[in-house]
């Protein structure tokens, strides 16, 4: 539609409305109806865990072969369906000497960082065993959302919905390598949800 035509039609509509308004002004009776209280709200994407600020695994002055295992429950609390990826922020120089296994599963009554009630998912997502999402050196763990582990790694990524909870078991082992002596390192893991 050209601009000229748009303007013309607007004028016609305004004239009609004005005529109706005039009729209302001069009428002896009036009535009205209203529809109030129309609510609007935007959806949310929110995800939380049960660590209360504590670390899920830790090794202190570890000897070769020493392992630390812990479980963390992750809950989706947003209102919009979302996909989730897991990645890490790594620091220090010990990463190449630590092996990490991350296994997804469930726990009917999770309590950080206990794995007492943990049951691994039955699905062999990436060919590493039931529920296993990652098994390798900590230093090789993805460190960005783009490269992050799609949860879970299957042909169809999981769609997280409100109230959905999954438990992740982390197991870290110091490898037997003389080069690891005296080194330190740290890792922070992030589950990032983005609406689909």
């Amino acid at each position, binding site marked *: 539609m050209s601009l000229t035509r748009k303007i013309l039609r607007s004028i016609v509509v305004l004239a009609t409305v004005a005529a109706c308004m005039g009729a209302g002004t001069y009428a002896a009776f009036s009535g009205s109806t209203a529809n109030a209280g129309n609510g609007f709200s935007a959806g949310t994407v929110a995800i939380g865990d*049960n660590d*209360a600020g*504590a670390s899920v695994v830790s090794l202190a002055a570890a000897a070769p072969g020493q392992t630390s295992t812990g479980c963390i429950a992750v*809950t989706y609390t947003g209102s919009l369906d979302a996909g989730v990826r897991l990645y890490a922020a790594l620091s220090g120089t010990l990463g190449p000497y630590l092996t990490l296994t991350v296994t997804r599963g469930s726990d009917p*009554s*999770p*309590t*950080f960082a206990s794995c007492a009630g943990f049951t691994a998912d039955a699905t062999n997502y990436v060919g590493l065993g039931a529920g296993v999402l990652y098994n390798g050196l900590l230093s090789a763990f993805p460190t960005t959302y783009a490269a992050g582990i799609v949860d879970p790694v299957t042909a169809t990524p999981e769609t997280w919905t409100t*109230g959905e909870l999954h438990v992740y078991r982390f197991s870290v082992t110091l490898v037997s390598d003389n080069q690891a002596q005296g080194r330190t390192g740290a890792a922070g893991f992030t589950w990032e949800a983005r609406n689909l």
Partner: protein
Amino acid sequence: MLGAAACAVLLLGTHIGRPAGALDAALTLTSSPTGELGVTPTGTVLAVHNLQPGAAPVRGSLVVHNQTGIPLDVRLRARPMSGDLDSGARLRITAGAASLFDATLAELRDGTRRVVVQPGRSRSLGIAVSLSPGDATSAQGRSDDVALELTSTPVTPSP
């Protein structure tokens, strides 16, 4: 004559309790878990469609589970969608014999008193909803959906 009187009494009784044409109020309470707290049920906790002023409270319950490894102070607060029943609806929330809250829906926006939930343990919270007896007209026909938001903080030792 006696029959007519009985009929009149019956009609009066009906009208005193509930004015003809009066619309009930409706209130739905929902809850959802946080990362630190599990909750049962998720979604609708209580859906009341026939709230009447002065009628007996409608009761429900909510179980909160501390999923962390530390004791938590847990509070509930209301997030009403419309606010239409803020002054008319009255809620009482209990944890066992302890009263955590007993006031209007509007005041529940500020939250309940805290209840301590130990790590790995659950607490059942009782919820009773009623309409204030004197709110026969302002709450009539109104409804609201209220999200009960759970918040938690680590228990701080008493000084």
